[in-house]
């Protein structure tokens, strides 16, 4: 675990994680505490039951995109700096090396999620929901599935394709995952070749919106659908296995 701990420490030292998280928290606090106004059809949205899911959507979206950013460079940067070479000569297997770095990415994503959840904490207190604060823990864990899925996908891509391409694909996949249900409806509306294309693309993209919807149900005292959560976990599993299986050459140059 030394590799993972070192990589995580380095991430925590970097400022970008905190800057982006802070912006997210600021936005969330503006809406969540009534300092800012969100309106639909000219009517200010202040109801906890309406505002809560919107906040959760923002947390999910911000965190997924932030996770792409924080996960993207970890493995390629190691190759660029030549650190990987030092690891190879110590006979550390590649799957373990990549795996630990990817795990550091996941943990960094979970740290930023925790920072964003601080805003949710304040939001619930501001809405007199202190008795429901405990629900933030299962909500956090469920949204963590999205963090892990996006992070593992980004790590996997960063090993296979150049960093720029990996970033573009991972960000696109994360966006599509956030709008998964919307794309599903779009598929049904357009039909034809376009519809078929979206249909197959959606099968490859993790349903980040679906997982977020389950987190929302838990936050509001409902029951989550196990199927959606298990599908999210399966996506993480597939990305992880692919990351373990994929072999790159030890003298690989920086991508």
């Amino acid at each position, binding site marked *: 675990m030394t590799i993972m701990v070192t990589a995580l420490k380095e991430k925590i030292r970097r400022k970008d994680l905190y800057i982006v998280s802070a912006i997210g928290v600021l936005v969330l606090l503006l809406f969540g505490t009534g300092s800012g106004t969100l309106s*639909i*059809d000219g009517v200010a949205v202040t109801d906890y039951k309406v505002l809560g899911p919107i906040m959760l959507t923002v947390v999910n979206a911000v965190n997924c995109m932030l996770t792409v950013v924080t996960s993207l460079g970890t493995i390629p940067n190691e190759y660029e700096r030549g650190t990987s070479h030092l690891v190879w000569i110590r006979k550390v297997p590649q799957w373990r090396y990549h795996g630990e770095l990817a795990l550091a990415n996941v943990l960094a994503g979970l740290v930023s999620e925790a920072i964003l959840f601080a805003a949710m904490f304040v939001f619930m207190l501001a809405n007199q929901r202190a008795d429901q604060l405990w629900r933030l823990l299962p909500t956090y864990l469920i949204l963590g599935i999205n963090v892990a899925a996006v992070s593992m996908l980004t790590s996997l891509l960063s090993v296979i394709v150049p960093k720029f391409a990996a970033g573009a694909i991972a960000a696109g996949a994360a966006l599509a995952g956030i709008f998964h*249900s*919307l794309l*599903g*409806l779009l*598929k*049904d*509306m*357009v*039909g*034809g070749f376009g*519809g*078929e294309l979206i*249909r197959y693309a959606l099968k490859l993209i993790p349903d980040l919106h679906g997982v977020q919807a389950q987190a929302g149900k838990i936050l509001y005292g409902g029951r989550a*659908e*196990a*199927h959606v959560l*298990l*599908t999210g*976990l*399966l996506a993480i*599993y597939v990305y992880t*296995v692919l990351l*373990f299986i994929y072999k790159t050459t030890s003298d690989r140059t920086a991508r």
Partner: protein
Amino acid sequence: MRKAIVILTGTALIIGVIVTGTYGLSKEDLAIYQRAVALEEQGGNIGFAGFALTDYPVAFYDGDQDYVLVWEEDGYSIEKRKAVINFIAATAYPVDDHYEVLTPTIQKMSSLLNMMSMGGMEYGEEEHIATLWHEAFHCYQSTFFPDNVNAICPAEVDGGIIAGEADTNPQAVSLFRQQAQLLEEAVKAEDVDKIKECIVKYKELDEERKMLLPGEVIALEDYYTRVEGTARYIEASVYKMLVPEQFDSAYMDVISEYGGGSTKYYKVGMAQCMILDTLDPHWKNGFDFSEPVIDLIYARLNV
């Protein structure tokens, strides 16, 4: 050992995903079909001779497959098939040698409408049941009166001419608004004299308006009013049986609301059917779509 753990974890996840997945038609959609069919015994055909929802298969589209429900003597049967049309639409559609009601599942339909209205439109089981009846009525029209329906206007007429001609002519729009208002008043009138007063004015405005628009627009308006208007009348009648307390706000109070496109003709067509109900409750028995409903009103009132 490590490989075994990895394989076992993957297997467990796959089994979990399969076991917890919902397959087949949802209970909600099944309940919708059963409630829709049950209305038939309560007079859901509203008097149109030979019209029965159960004569037409109802296919629920879940985004991938159609679940086709067919009514048989001892209940219904369900069959899964490849979707006939791979997009969301509630419609009457020819399949092999017959017409079927094609509809998205309630989950698909409500999420679509919710998204399109930014959460401002509620669409539930009752609305979906009414939609099934609306589309089943189109199946009835196409099955029994295809020639009369097709004769109303050429099939190749583009619906866009409504937006391009009728909706952009300020005088025609103003006259239509007044006509729709008169129909709403007539529908809500409690005596025949009041209805006649409204219909006389309506006819004068109608003649004036027809001078303003091209013949193909008038024909298309007639098509929507006659074909879609009667289907909306069925839909409204079914909705009234299901949710009487919301019937006025959902159908009666919006007759004169003007909107771009074809929906306004659905509303005035429905209103015309309702007026005829007051004048002659048996008008539907034998109605074959060969003449506009408004002409039947004129004839009953000697206007």
